[in-house]
């Protein structure tokens, strides 16, 4: 099918006579003028789409620390193409949707959806993958993903729809309860045909992307914005990609409108296995045999619509042969009928429904049909004016499904009041009585009663919302049990105030369980912020979650910003979280406190002082001791003697420790601590456009203690380290074409244990690198680089020299193409010599305004130690 589409695309593109009519709808040239931008635009064939391809390959032969040997590949692609246009009065529209993934599990391995639509006047031909969408009737319906052809015609007074297809999979239906999570919930058969799933929760159809996601390959459904509690029924219809016998689906629906208000229609559907080769297939089945079957449905329906009455009636018959290979009759005939009407007489509305289905009637592609159905319903509504409306409905249903008789009664009523300028009010009552568990079929005799009220009001600067619900679940069988829920949600906020914002949300849920338990969950959210002028801002927030089963958590948050003068500003935030934290022995109430404060003082344009303070600790409320502390302070001074130079000094302090959590009940013994202080001096200059320099001196001292005995007397091992570094960077642009970047770094590392300073690590290194860059033209840039490192390890008494020459080439073609290639050879001389070759290739090719190709390839070949590491990452982006 892809090939067919490719041919179509090629024809569309290469046909010169057609191409003359085709012009891009988008920008084709831009130039800057004195006013605005100059564009030229044209109209014509529209090619739209997007392609995202990401692939990566990582391969290691030999061994290298931190890498697993072998080859790993991953590729993800999503392709959408839409081509639409008109030729010879025929509208053409082609679509491709394709996702493939290898080496990853998030998406199905391969999914394709290809279609071509040709439309002339009122007739439409559709080739490719489509959803049947014969959904106007209940009994002769087909709403399955198919692959084949469909023709539709609508000529005003009459029309038709015919389809021929091979199904993309076999239908399956799964019904189950939630488990109190968002999933994933696994389907039994995979892979699932893309777009074939219909997911509903408690009868409400969910929307992919909004309500759930599905992994078509793994066959798992994950809900997005809610957990599915154990009382909610999830029902998922889906096709999985396997059919035993050769299979075809035919369909024809024709309608006529003898008068404008009346539509009469006829539908014939056939969904049968092919007998060719069926006997051999069946005899080859080693496990449970599946017989080839035929299934057809014929239906008649009519709809009458007038100002006062809408009437819909259906008659249908199904004919199934359960075993086409059987010599004896295995046919089943069934009939179904339905009458549904609604009537509107002034303010009054009436609805009636009667439905009767034979035990042997089965609709096409219905996996788990309801049979021997008897349904009736009546509804009455009254809406005398736009401000008030009310409605009541009674519905009774009896049916047989997988041998279980279900009897359900649903009663509901609703009243709504929407006065202009006043709060809207909605009241809903519902009572649902069911005889059997909808999933297991077990007899339960359950009645669910719900009452809810919601009001929303926005006036001036105030917006409020309030929703309250009371719910009762009554189980009469096997024993009588009642569970009551009470829920209230309230929101109040100011809207549009510049200086003050207030918002609050309260959620209350109380539950009374049959065993007498009364679990509850309460959430309170309160926020207030004030900004009297643009220079001051103060904000406070309080959030409390009180869950009888999970405990209480509250967060208090304070934040401010102040700029009292042009040369001083400060901002800060402090948050306190109170929560129960599990310790090895007990659960302890703790207060987690974090803060961030910044003070910025600029007494003159050439001078800046900054002070930062970031406390972060956890306090055990019972002992009033800290179980964790991580405190940071920083002082920074910047001097800007001239516009293009800055001198900086930063002094940092860090204090961190954890207590030994087995030290119950005192919690005063530290398990480890790590204190650091560091200083950084920086000079950065850019005195000329051709020259920039940077000089850094950095020194960090660290002190660590680690608990080594867990019994008194507690002993610690001590550690100490000093890191000193001097860094010089010089970037020079000798001309527009030639520049030199150079860097020298000296580093001294000392690490010791106990009182010693350098018995663990004692190294000194010098590193010098130079890079010459020659911008030969706007197309070419060449670079030559060299690096030299001398590392002295005083503990091993070993000196390592590393020499790393290299070169690079950059090619640019306007803004559309850029290719970077770099090669570095690195050889070290030491106790163990190493030798490496590094190749890096990066390309970005904007093939057009719409197509970018990006490739990054990197290879490291080492002779000592012996390994080869290859890393290739690519992206193709096509935006039409």
């Amino acid at each position, binding site marked *: 099918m892809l090939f067919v589409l490719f041919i179509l695309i090629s024809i569309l593109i290469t046909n010169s006579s057609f191409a003359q009519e085709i012009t891009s709808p988008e920008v084709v040239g831009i130039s800057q003028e004195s006013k605005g931008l100059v564009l030229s635009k044209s109209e014509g064939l529209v090619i739209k789409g997007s392609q995202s391809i990401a692939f990566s390959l990582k391969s290691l032969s030999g061994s290298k620390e931190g890498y697993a040997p072998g080859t790993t590949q991953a590729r993800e692609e999503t392709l959408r193409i839409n081509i639409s246009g008109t030729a010879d009065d025929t509208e053409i529209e082609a679509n491709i949707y394709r996702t493939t993934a290898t080496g990853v599990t998030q998406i199905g391995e391969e999914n394709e959806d290809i279609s071509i639509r040709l439309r002339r006047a009122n007739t439409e031909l559709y080739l490719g993958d489509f959803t049947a969408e014969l959904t106007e009737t209940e009994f002769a319906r087909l709403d399955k993903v198919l692959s084949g052809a469909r023709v539709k015609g609508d000529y005003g007074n009459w029309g038709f729809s015919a389809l021929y297809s091979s199904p993309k999979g076999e239908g399956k239906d799964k019904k189950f309860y939630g488990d109190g999570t968002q999933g994933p919930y696994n389907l039994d058969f995979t892979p699932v045909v893309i777009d074939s799933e219909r997911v509903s929760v408690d009868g409400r159809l969910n929307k992919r992307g909004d309500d759930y996601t599905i992994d078509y390959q793994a066959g798992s459904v994950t809900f997005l914005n809610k957990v599915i509690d154990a009382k909610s029924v999830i029902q998922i219809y889906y096709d999985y990609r396997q059919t035993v016998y050769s299979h075809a689906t035919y369909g024809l629906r024709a309608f006529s409108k003898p008068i404008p208000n009346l539509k009469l229609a006829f539908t014939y559907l056939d969904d049968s296995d092919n007998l060719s080769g069926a006997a051999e297939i069946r005899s080859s089945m080693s496990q449970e045999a599946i017989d080839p079957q035929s299934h057809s449905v014929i239906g008649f329906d009519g709809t009458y619509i007038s100002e006062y009455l809408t009437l819909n009636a259906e008659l249908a018959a199904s004919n199934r042969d359960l075993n086409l290979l059987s010599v004896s009759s295995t046919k089943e005939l069934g009939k179904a009928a339905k009458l549904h009407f609604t009537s509107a007489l002034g303010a009054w509305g009436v609805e009636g429904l009667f439905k009767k289905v034979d035990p042997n009637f089965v609709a096409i592609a219905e996996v788990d049909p309801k049979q021997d159905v008897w349904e009736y319903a009546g509804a009455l509504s009254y809406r005398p004016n736009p401000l008030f409306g009310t409605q009541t409905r009674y519905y009774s249903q009896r049916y047989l499904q997988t041998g279980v008789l279900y009897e359900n009664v649903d009663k509901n009523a609703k009243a709504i009041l929407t006065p202009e300028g006043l709060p809207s009010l909605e009241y809903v009552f519902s009572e649902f009585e069911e005889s059997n568990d909808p999933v297991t079929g077990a007899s339960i005799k359950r009645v669910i009663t719900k009452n809810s009220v919601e009001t929303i009001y926005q006036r001036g600067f105030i917006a409020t*919302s309030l929703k309250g619900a009371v719910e009762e679940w009554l189980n009469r069988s096997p024993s009588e049990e009642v569970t009551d829920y009470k829920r209230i949600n309230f929101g109040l906020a100011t809207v549009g105030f510049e200086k003050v914002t207030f918002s609050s949300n309260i959620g209350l849920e109380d539950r009374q369980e049959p065993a007498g338990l009364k679990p509850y969950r309460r959430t309170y959210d309160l926020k207030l912020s004030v900004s009297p002028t643009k220079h001051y801002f103060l904000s406070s927030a309080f959030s409390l979650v009180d869950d009888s089963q999970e405990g209480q958590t509250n967060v208090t948050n304070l934040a401010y910003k102040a700029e009292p003068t042009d040369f001083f500003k400060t901002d800060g935030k402090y948050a306190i979280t109170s929560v129960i934290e599990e310790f090895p022995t007990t659960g302890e109430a703790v207060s987690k406190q974090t803060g961030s404060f910044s003070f910025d003082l600029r007494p003159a344009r050439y001078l800046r002082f900054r002070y930062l303070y970031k406390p972060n600790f956890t306090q055990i409320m019972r002992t009033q001791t800290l179980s964790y502390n991580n405190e940071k302070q920083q002082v920074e001074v910047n001097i800007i003697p001239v516009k293009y130079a800055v001198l900086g000094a930063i002094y940092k302090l860090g204090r961190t420790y954890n207590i030994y959590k087995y030290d119950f009940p005192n919690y005063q013994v530290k398990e480890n601590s790590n204190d650091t202080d560091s200083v950084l001096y920086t000079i950065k200059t850019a005195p000329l456009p051709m020259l920039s320099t940077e000089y850094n001196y950095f020194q960090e001292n660290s002190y660590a203690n680690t608990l080594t005995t867990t019994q008194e007397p507690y002993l610690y091992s001590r550690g100490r380290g000093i890191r000193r570094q001097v860094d010089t960077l010089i970037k020079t642009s000798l001309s527009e074409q030639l520049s030199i970047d150079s860097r020298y770094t000296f580093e001294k590392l000392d690490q010791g244990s106990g009182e010693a300073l350098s018995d663990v690590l004692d190294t000194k290194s010098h590193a010098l690198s130079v890079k010459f860059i020659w911008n030969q033209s706007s197309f070419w840039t060449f670079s030559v680089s060299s690096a030299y490192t001398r590392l002295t390890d005083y503990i091993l008494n070993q000196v390592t020299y590393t020499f790393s020459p290299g070169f690079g080439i950059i090619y640019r073609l306007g803004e559309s193409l850029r290719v970077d290639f770099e090669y570095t050879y690195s050889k070290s001389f030491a106790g163990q010599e190493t030798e490496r070759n590094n190749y890096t290739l990066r390309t970005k090719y904007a093939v057009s305004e719409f197509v970018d190709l990006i490739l990054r390839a990197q290879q490291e070949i080492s002779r000592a130690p012996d390994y080869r590491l290859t890393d290739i990452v690519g992206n193709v982006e096509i935006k039409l």
Partner: protein
Amino acid sequence: MRYLFLIFALLLSSNSVFAMGEIPSTPKLITPEAEFGRTFGLPGSGDAQFYYPHDVDLGLIGDMKTGLNNLFITDTGNNRVQRLDEDGGYVYQFGSFGSENGKFNAPVGIAVDFNFRIYVSEKDNDRVQLFDIQGNFLREVATSEYGYKTIDDPSGLAVDSLGNLYIADSGNDRVLKFSDTGDFLGVVGSFGYGAGFFDRPADVAVDRDNYVYVADTYNHRIQKLDYDGQPVMMFGSFGSGPGELSFPQGIAVDNLFVYVADTGNNRVQLFDKQGKFLLMAGGLNMPTGISLGSGGLVYIVDSGNHRIQELKVSY
């Protein structure tokens, strides 16, 4: 092989479009126009409610599942990220207050990359976290020390066409660059006033040619850097007139225009790629983030009004 055919066909088609574009046509002098559209959100902590949101980014590729045309918003005051569909309908949220993985303390910057991953920066946890498109925590990014400094008050984020991540490391007055696999690639800038120096840069954007635009907030200007981080040009100065800026905190860029959230002036301004002022749209309250949708739609985080404001730009 079929797939290669398709790519080839697409290349042909795009070249055809180019070729056809060379047919002489009458140039049209245009000036962009803008009109405010819908607003999404009310103050609060409920679904699709916000409290001082800071930044927004759009899913520009993929499908509904992977967030095509969905808005990903850092709801800073509620310490969470919310995802809305293109009509402002609530899709999901993730995150709550805290410092553990997957939690937030003042999430500010957000960027969705082409692999359907979400980067979120947090001002008060001084970190950038990476999530999958469902909001599942993947890992932290930029966890080490770069140029003797750890990340401090990270703010705006951007992803270029190579998948590289740019972080406005606001507290350190610089911009950091990382590869799509999290490797550190480079640093540009330090505190100062000259070209290539920044003063608390709040946001960063990258165009399709990989030029980097930095909202140099406390210098009240925009700086444009090339792919290697060298300053190319800068525009804007402190003030409230056309083309002048006051504490710009958000920036977005497309093939034609540079969109600036001119926070202190409560407006959005449009410039061309050479920094020439084109238009402004005011009446906002502390706009901080800005992102571009399809069809000329611009989404502005109208932070002080706790909502997302849609702006339609036509030309």
